[in-house]
């Protein structure tokens, strides 16, 4: 790592949702602030800025991570994915997103992007995840609107659908 200076902004090169990005950030800038206020992708939300609520969850090199506990400088060279990248096309929803809509897995939607990023990673790594795994992963997120049940149902439905698609003849 080059030696950095607190008073200056430093270049951060990384991949964001498949595109190469060159941004500038002070050492102390959080990844959540970089994404929202420098790059302008406001889908990643900030609910606590101390790592508890999970609203800011993004994927860094495929793994869910709290953007509010990550310094912008830490993602140099990494592959960062945010909620904006989940849908396959402009007017489409991913199966997970569609399941959330069908099952009313959201109300205000503030916690939702973080939850989607966690579940997206879970369903990729553990395609056979059941209710318990899903609940376990959701326990890192706070939702104040839904009471969670519909989120669990949406995730289960998406997992089911994904399994069907992967084994079309089963």
């Amino acid at each position, binding site marked *: 790592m080059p030696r950095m200076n607190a008073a200056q902004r430093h270049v951060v090169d990384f991949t964001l949702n498949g595109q190469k990005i060159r941004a500038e950030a*002070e050492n*102390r*800038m959080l990844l959540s602030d970089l994404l*929202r206020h420098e790059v302008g*992708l*406001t*889908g*990643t*939300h*900030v*609910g*606590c*800025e*101390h790592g*508890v*609520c999970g*609203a800011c969850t993004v994927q860094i090199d495929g793994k869910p991570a709290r953007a509010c506990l990550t310094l912008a400088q830490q993602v140099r060279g990494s592959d960062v994915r*945010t*909620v*904006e990248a*989940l*849908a396959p096309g402009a007017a489409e*929803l991913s199966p997970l*997103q569609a399941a*959330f*809509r*069908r099952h*009313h897995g*959201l*109300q*205000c*939607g*503030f*916690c*939702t*992007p973080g939850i*989607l990023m966690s579940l997206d990673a879970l369903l990729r790594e553990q395609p056979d995840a059941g209710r318990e795994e899903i*609940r376990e992963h*959701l*326990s*890192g*997120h*706070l*939702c*104040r*609107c*839904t*009471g*969670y*049940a*519909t*989120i*669990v149902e949406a995730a289960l439905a998406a997992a089911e659908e994904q399994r069907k698609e992967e084994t079309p003849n089963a």
Partner: protein
Amino acid sequence: MKSLETAGGLIGRTVERVEDAGLLTGRGRYIDDLPVRRDTAHLAILRSPHGHAEIRAINTSAASALPGVSAVLTGDDVGRLTRSMTVGVKANVECWPIARDRVRYVGEPVALVVAENRYVAEDALDLIEVEYETLAAIVDPEKALATDAPVLHPSLGTNLINERSFRYGDPEAAFATADHRIAIRIAYPRNSCTPIETYGVIAEYDPGEDAYDVTANFQGPFSIHAVISRALNVPGNRMRLRTPPDSGGSFGIKQGVFPYVILAAVAARVAGRPVKWIEDRLEHLTASVSATNRVTTLEAAVAADGRITALCWDQLEDCGAHLRAPEPATLYRMHGNMTGAYAIENVAIRNRVVLTNKTPTGLNRGFGGPQVYFALERLVHKIADELGLDRLQVIRRNLVPADAFPYRTATGGLLDSGDYQTAIDRACAEGGLDALRLRRDQARAEGRLYGIGYATVVEPSVSNMGYITTVLTPEERAKAGPKNGAQSVATVAIDPLGSITVKVASVPQGQGHRTVLAQVVAERLGLPLEAVRVNTELDTARDAWSIASGNYASRFAAAVAGAAALAADRIRERLAAIAASQLNVTADRIDFKAGKLFDRDNPDNAISFGRVAAASHWAPGTLPDGTGQTIRETVFWTPEQLEAPTATDGINSSLCHGFIFDICGAEIDRTTGQVRIDRYVTMHDCGRILHPGMVDGQVRGGFAQAIGAALYEEYAYGGDGSFLTGTLADYLIPTVMETPEPLILHHETPSPFTPLGAKGVGEGNCMSTPVCIANAVADALGVEDIRLPLSPSQVSEWLYGEERPPSKPQDSTPVATGASGERLLTGSGSADVVATRESVWTMLLDPNTLKAIIPGAHEVRKVSDTHFRAEVTLGIGPVKGRYHADIRLSDMVAPQAVTLSGGTEGALGSGRGTGRVTLTETATGTRIDYRYEAAIGGKVASVGGRLLDGAARVVIGQFFQALARHAGGGGPPSAAAGFTQRLLSLFRRRR
């Protein structure tokens, strides 16, 4: 979105929400996402670390001089440009959004900084020096009434800001002749439904027109707009208030953003540029708003068969440090339904409102209901137990009869509709009460702790804007003029292509209003859902609104959707007249379906909706005589039942009254004291259901928050007013793991008073569930004085008695006892360094070495051989601050041991402590042993044990590593807990 077939039948169906595609793809537009003017600066707020203190001096010069800072304001600056906020009762107090010469709660704003970005603004906060003289704080509402209690507002001379007594029927006679008098005393704690999105404000001032333009994620009621305009000293039309398209939840809480609207507006004026402020979570938990805590004594006059003939309420309401609008509304919102679901004819009420050194209170889901029903439903349980009757039987014996609706309650409420008996019967049958009883009996036979609780609740919705004037005496009311009603408003507009736009002043925060309004209006006009688009952003400069606008008191389904239906009906009537003239039939034969208007008796005689709808734009001359335009229709609707309080203080505080009956089966773990909800049944009568999925979503969401209130959440204060639950790691919101799934049942009795027959539904479980769980726990444990939250430590106390202090002192285990309300930390440890004892001794007493090795030290000054002063910056979790420390050395035995004692003071808190350091020679150098005891208060105390202890360990570790390095190498510390007192005392605060 998949296309829905047209025509009727949209209302009552669980259609997919139109809101969701945007929210799911990161395209929501919450306040922090909105574009702002390029010259927008950012606001940060310096807040009081003390619960109660006089401000002696504020020095802002260093902050103002920091590059990037464009303005620094103190209470005096704000005072010069604004007026005190209106207080809802007659009392000689002022109410400012920022402290003037005294701070009265931890977190109260003390100074504002406007800077180019938030990072710089917060740097500047660190440079502001405030000199406080602390005063004794009062946090207990009962103690606040003592004659020798510290008084928050000297102008008032007492902490009791309002008291009123009421009498309905003949309670004295009922009590005198009653077979039994049974009473219960309740202390309901403070909590908050805290949304995941915090407050945000973007403010701008135009000096040319002396006008403010503010966007805030405010939720209403817009009666607050009048409070803001008055405080800013401008007419209402120079205070433009707008809301963003999306809001990340509110549950009442975002009503409380309004003092910050005032602060940001003034800051923008002084800075000469737009100002943006986004609250952080610590600010939110510490200083936004919460529900009131309340001490209630409730007594009932009871006949031998369990019939209640009179109630006597004594309510002591704690509204925190200021009585902020619309308080004391929490105390009066339930006034019309103080008898709950029961027919009780005689009622006496004494209401007192007291001020304490806690955050001012405000709207919170359930608003007044949790406090009232906790007392009432605990009492009904107790009555049954004392009389040896079945609890359900006592409930049933007292219910309002099914044929009595609309039923006028003793206190003036008008219960619109219901069939409580049937709803309860169905809940018991469909909820499996018999099986649950067997389960309980079996568990008990096995020696387990299992209980069943019930709660019966009337859930008011659509508040009467006049109910709060019940706090005034009839004479005061007569002078002030009557207040009543609740205007809701909706606009339906048709564009030149014949598509529909609906506009309402409902300000949703995630409830799906846009979807429901599209359903309602599309159904009225025989159109597919997607033909109607709904806009719920509110702009007071452009839109139709009134003081009742906003999203609170569960008014949407009953009032706002109703107004939209009425507006659609008016348009529909005119469209029918136009179509009739073109189809040569009479208007009463015209029907609307599938995008067509047609003759009901001859459906082939039809014309497209678009054609009829567009006529007002393209060919107004062709409209039949007497038919008005169909371009835009705005309907204001206020229900006649919402009358002003009567001369005898009767008040119909709400238009609608839903009904809830809950059953809870709970088991308590004998070993841990943990409460587990085994089964939960919740029966709702919310009138006609407009969207079943959303109704159940509201029920589940309220239920989850109520689980939090019952088992986990409390805004905890120390005796000195320090706030102890400032992060989401301390204020425990239930996750999916803690949230059981209730069985939701419905029994619909449509309201005769609302256009669609709907009633509110969102708040009910916040009223019913905490007491239902408490009743189950009381049943399991046989304990009467049930206090929330039912944490394992609380329950264990009932199981095993109060915890005794350990027989021998525990080392290295920080304890959060908070004797005086401060957080206490103790610990000890040791470290080895490769250096002689003498050189370590010298290092420890040398300011230059200390400066080099104390983490975050800017300066360490030696005042005398035994007195040091230090300046340090330290961050713990989200709380970073600068501190001055004053350390004295005593009991020095060079080079072996020294005692350090002292205190620190900073914007974020204060601390004091003592510690003993001992140096021992070892084969490789020196071993340092330390033991400390420290107490902290203020903002840092609210960060919570876990973070504090962890942070202390890290800091101490860093100190020893630095010391070892400085001493010329050596091992890392061998223990981790706390040199704190010396370190901490040295470098800034000790925890």
